[in-house]
């Protein structure tokens, strides 16, 4: 059992495994996250996806349990921060694609800061937007917003201008997003200045001062998902050296 999000010593489960007894104690309320479901026949909890079993003790009486699984296919969830590609317009919304071959999401013309009927931001086809999933019901179209739900300000959401976007695995994107002190981005920040937007849908947008550095930084981030932590520095050095940087 792990109390932290990114514990490599956590147990790995596959669908149908028996969960440890101490997870299902009656003392605390359990909140089921992705990858955990109830088996109606035996009235017990079972993992339904393979991956690391994560347990977070939120308070004395509340426990969150989920399976951190490797996946390439993104399913939108409420409040996910995502990077989408504008495909066109339909009615008073933009059609935005979060991943290939999946139904498009809707981004209303008016869910952008200061947008009104007379004053609205025009996105072109192919533009990248950083947005928050505001409605995610499996039976209806997913809706996005480029607004902070508390302040109603853009707060970094909106058009991602210039830069370069690339795809990574979903678990890697989650790791970079939630683990703020990860050494991958810390090492890169020692080498160059950059703006980065990480989408939970496995898309990462990066922008630096010049194109060559942007390319080198993007390749370093992509390669860093297949090397252990102790080799990160040498990977960064080699990648930038390949671009004469």
């Amino acid at each position, binding site marked *: 059992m792990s109390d932290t999000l990114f514990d490599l010593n956590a147990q790995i489960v*596959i669908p*149908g*495994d*028996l969960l440890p007894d101490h997870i299902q104690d009656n003392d605390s309320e359990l909140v089921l996250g992705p990858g955990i479901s109830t*088996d109606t026949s035996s009235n017990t909890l079972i993992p339904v996806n393979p991956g690391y079993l994560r347990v977070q003790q939120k308070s004395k009486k509340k426990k969150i349990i989920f399976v951190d699984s490797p996946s390439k296919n993104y399913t939108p969830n409420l409040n996910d921060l995502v990077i989408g590609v504008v495909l066109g317009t339909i009615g008073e919304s933009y059609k935005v694609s979060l991943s290939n071959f999946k139904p498009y999401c809707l981004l209303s013309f008016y869910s952008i800061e200061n947008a009104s009927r007379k004053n609205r931001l025009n996105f072109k086809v192919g533009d990248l937007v950083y947005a928050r999933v505001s409605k995610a019901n499996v039976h209806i179209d997913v809706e996005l917003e480029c607004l902070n739900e508390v302040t109603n300000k853009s707060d970094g959401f909106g058009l991602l201008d210039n830069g370069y976007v690339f795809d990574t695995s979903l678990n890697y994107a989650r790791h970079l997003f939630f683990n703020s002190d990860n050494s991958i981005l810390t090492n890169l920040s020692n080498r160059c200045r950059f703006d980065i937007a990480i989408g939970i849908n496995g898309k990462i947008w990066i922008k630096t001062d010049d194109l060559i550095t942007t390319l080198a930084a993007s390749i370093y981030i992509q390669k860093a998902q297949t090397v252990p932590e102790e080799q990160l520095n040498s990977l960064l050095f080699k990648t930038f050296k390949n671009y004469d940087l």
Partner: protein
Amino acid sequence: MPTLDLEDLSIPDIHNLPPDALPALSSSLFDGLKFDTSIISHCDGSSSLTISDNLKLICSINGPIESSLKLELPDKLALDISVNSSLSTTNNSNNQLIENNLRKLLIRKINLSMYPKQLLVINFQFLVSPSENSLFQKNSPPNTPSSSSSSSYLLELMACINAAYLALLDANISLTSSFNSVIINNNSSNHLICYDHNHLHTINNSTTDHDIIILYSESLGRFSQSTLFNILFNFGYKKSLLLNFHFASLYKSIIKQKFIYTDNK
């Protein structure tokens, strides 16, 4: 017949074995079985399965994706399964039979209600299959079915079930439990059995407290009822349990590789 088919099953009683002995036993039993996952980068999930040099199969999964209106189901996931032979001359009715049996199995094991109105495309491509090998055997008379064609059908179905399970894990599709299929050869008959493993404690290699259910069984040849029951509840059960451990331990090592970047704090 490939290594998986154990003519002389001398598997010890699994429940009395020490936990450390299980992985070694399962890897020695399934030495001829090789598999790999994530072999096709542009698919959501893929797997390859090789049984000695007799059978090679690739399975690819795309989905859940947007479904066409024709296939769409309002409250659950639709499955589009296709099995392709390596040679176009091979009998397509065999593939159709495999597709139908696979559909029957997979709709019971996938949590279909998790993905309403969506589609899961599952493709199987045989690179080497025993039924096609037999077409080119010199001694077999032309235009007559090979003597081993029926048993090769069981072998192909078994490979498809196991490859589908691995590809579904790779695609991260929600499953109700683990499953696999094994073939048991008797003197005069061949038996394919697909087992469902639920509440199995693979975390510490312990085999206590688990439910095992027979999902599907198909037998060819002459056999008695007692032989069939012995195979279903003894030999097949033990072999399937070991195969499940084999898959679980190898897939867990794959997951560790996919999370290699994770900080060990």
